[in-house]
């Protein structure tokens, strides 16, 4: 403080302050300018992405979903479904659909990552909706809890997807697909957006934390070694009964035939 009180009446104090002030304003402006410039760059980047997405959409999706994604008789409106929905449907190969029968099925994706991102950006630009997530953003390995996830899975998912996530039948040829081998982000997005016959599990139904636990349990089930021997599809007693009749009784009857063959 003595430094200030000694020099505040100095004759160069005024010009120094002026210089310092100008310098501060100038640097701030430059920084702000740079920042806003990068923002402008991002906006234009995003605009390109959206434009790109719109182009892909017009080529690949509009025949069913309408030129402005407003939907038509055969396909729903995509306004407000969000990037998460597009990322799930397109990146798992469900969209574009191979046939219009029961429901879109998982297959090799038609569009690559950039194209999918462009489509997602375009649809997200139409109206706000759930944003897409990346595998890196989901810290399921760190923040999930396997046991809690299993309990949540049995409470919310097993009734359609089976106790071990192997999938199950729904009415009229629809089905709940297996959740084995699905990217964590797609599991997350599916819960968030409720694709096909699946209900939406919003963040008030299953908190983000709980969703991560479910993903952790699914990944655990996926990697769990077959503890009791051949897993037989993990679909319960049907395959077990089949094996008991074919291999089990088959072997025993074979032995019985051998035991009662007359010695030659």
């Amino acid at each position, binding site marked *: 403080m003595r430094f200030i009180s000694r020099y505040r009446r100095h004759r160069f104090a005024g010009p120094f302050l002026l210089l310092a002030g100008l310098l501060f304003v100038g640097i701030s402006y430059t920084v702000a300018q740079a920042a806003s410039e990068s923002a402008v760059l991002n906006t234009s980047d995003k605009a390109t992405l959206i434009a790109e997405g719109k182009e892909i959409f017009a080529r690949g999706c509009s025949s069913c979903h309408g030129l402005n994604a407003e939907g038509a008789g055969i396909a729903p409106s995509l306004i407000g479904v969000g990037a998460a929905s597009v990322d799930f449907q397109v990146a798992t190969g469900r969209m574009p659909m191979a046939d219009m029968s029961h429901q879109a099925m998982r297959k090799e994706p038609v569009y690559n990552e950039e194209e999918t991102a462009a489509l997602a950006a375009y649809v997200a630009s139409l109206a706000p909706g759930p944003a897409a997530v990346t595998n890196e953003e989901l810290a399921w390995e760190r923040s999930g809890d396997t046991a809690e996830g299993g309990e949540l899975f049995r409470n919310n998912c*097993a009734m359609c997807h089976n106790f071990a996530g192997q999938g199950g039948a729904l*009415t009229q040829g629809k089905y709940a697909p297996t959740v084995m081998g699905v990217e964590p982000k797609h599991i997350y997005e599916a819960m968030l957006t409720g694709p096909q016959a699946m209900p939406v599990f919003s963040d008030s139904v299953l908190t983000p934390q709980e969703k991560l636990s479910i993903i952790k349990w699914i990944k655990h089930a996926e990697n769990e070694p077959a*503890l009791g021997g051949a897993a037989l599809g993990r679909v319960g*007693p049907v395959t077990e009964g089949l094996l008991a009749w074919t291999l*089990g009784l088959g072997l025993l009857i074979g*032995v019985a035939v051998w*035991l009662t063959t007359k010695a030659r």
Partner: protein
Amino acid sequence: MSARERVAGQVANYVDERTGSAKWLKKTLTKVFPDHWSFMLGEIVLYSFIILLLSGTFLTFWFDPSMREVEYEGSYEPLSGLKMSAAYASTLHISFDVRGGLLMRQIHHWAALIFMAAMVAHLMRVFFTGAFRKPREFNWIIGVGLLTLGIVEGFLGYSLPDDLLSGTGIRIAEAIIQALPVVGSYLAYFIFGGAFPGEMFIQRIYVVHILLIPGIFLALITAHLMLVWYQKHTQYPGPGRTEKNVVGYPLMPVYMAKAGGFFFIVFGVTAFLGAFASINPLWLYGPYTPGQISAGSQPDWYMGWLDGLVRMAPPLETYWFGYTISWNILIPGLIIPGIIFTGMALYPFIESWMTGDKREHHLLDRPRNAPNRTALGAMSITFMLVALINGGNDLIATHFDLSINQIMWFTRIGIIVLPPLVFVITKRICLSLQRADRELVLHGRETGRLVMLPHGEFIEVHEPLSPQRAYLLTQHEQLPALEPVAADANGVRNPKGAKAKIQARLSRANQEQIAKPTPKEVLEIEDHH
């Protein structure tokens, strides 16, 4: 006499002087049994039962039949910290923390599936060969009792661990009990000691599973085997085999070796399955809570047909005098199984009434020579298979890309249409086979060798059958159908009236046969050649 023989003789003598066992043993050990692979199906059942007793005893050392709530702290990480019943926790303990526990559990469960499968295979052998006929009707009824008990015992067994799947099964059993008109809800309260799930049923079914039903099993199996022993085993027809003898090998040493060896083979196959194929992976099912359910919840196969019947039942319900009657559960869950098992138990008497045949039979029928019975059996199997298919309708839908609704409609219609169709087709096949037998006896085997006769005619050479084979194809008797007696010689109307008419009609259906070649026909053909 060597030293060893002398010692053995002294020991045998010592025992005999005190127990008088030599005479009994001499008779017993030389008892003759006929030889055929299908006669060993029942042995598979018996040996599986012994395996079940042994492995089950092992499991009781650690299983805690209690619904007390505990927190799981065992070594299966994905369930750690979860609240569950002591029954489920102790089953996890057996699976993961007891040495050999999972293997024993899997052996026990595989043995149960094979026990029931072999029982059904044995039942089919007895049915299609007519082994249930006089004097073996009682043994048939004991067998039906064992089958019913086996289904109940198996169901209780897989309900014990209190996992999500077994709890679902118990819930359905409760629903079936509740479907009983008037008393259903009271009975359910009585069985579960209050509202479902309560805190009692694991303890209760445990006692029934490990004590009551195995005890009844032991008694019935003993009676079953004693009757086989006393009535002697049936045999397939053939030269030298009559209704009065048994052609085969003595118990000692042939069957002692065969049966003893077969026991170890059955144990080996069961242990092989237990070691290499997972069964009832209940750590994946999770603990039971009434609020949860898994897609594709199925019972073990021997209950699968019942599940299939319940699944295909249309939603019928009536409300009478303040009581709801759930026909959709009552009919498939209680009435149809009741008809099936009662009909099965009474079949020996029904058949003997239909054919009017009251004689003893120790020679088995070739299934084609009893077309009506064979067709009835095929029809029953078809009914069960259609029901069983619907029991797995959701898995069939997902694995074969079908619609579950289509499968259900297929089985709903199929269960009514297919059994009669199969009856007719099977009967026709049996009669065709009889016709083929007749051709064989009369004209011999077609050799496929074409010979040109001197005058240019081509003929196929037929090879005559060996006398043994010809005997086998013609040994069966063909009873004439019963004649309906409307009135006796004095014009008195038959007091049995309509009943006699029905009996005569059924008898005609049963006696529909292709006439087997008579010795005269054979001689004529031989002269002709």
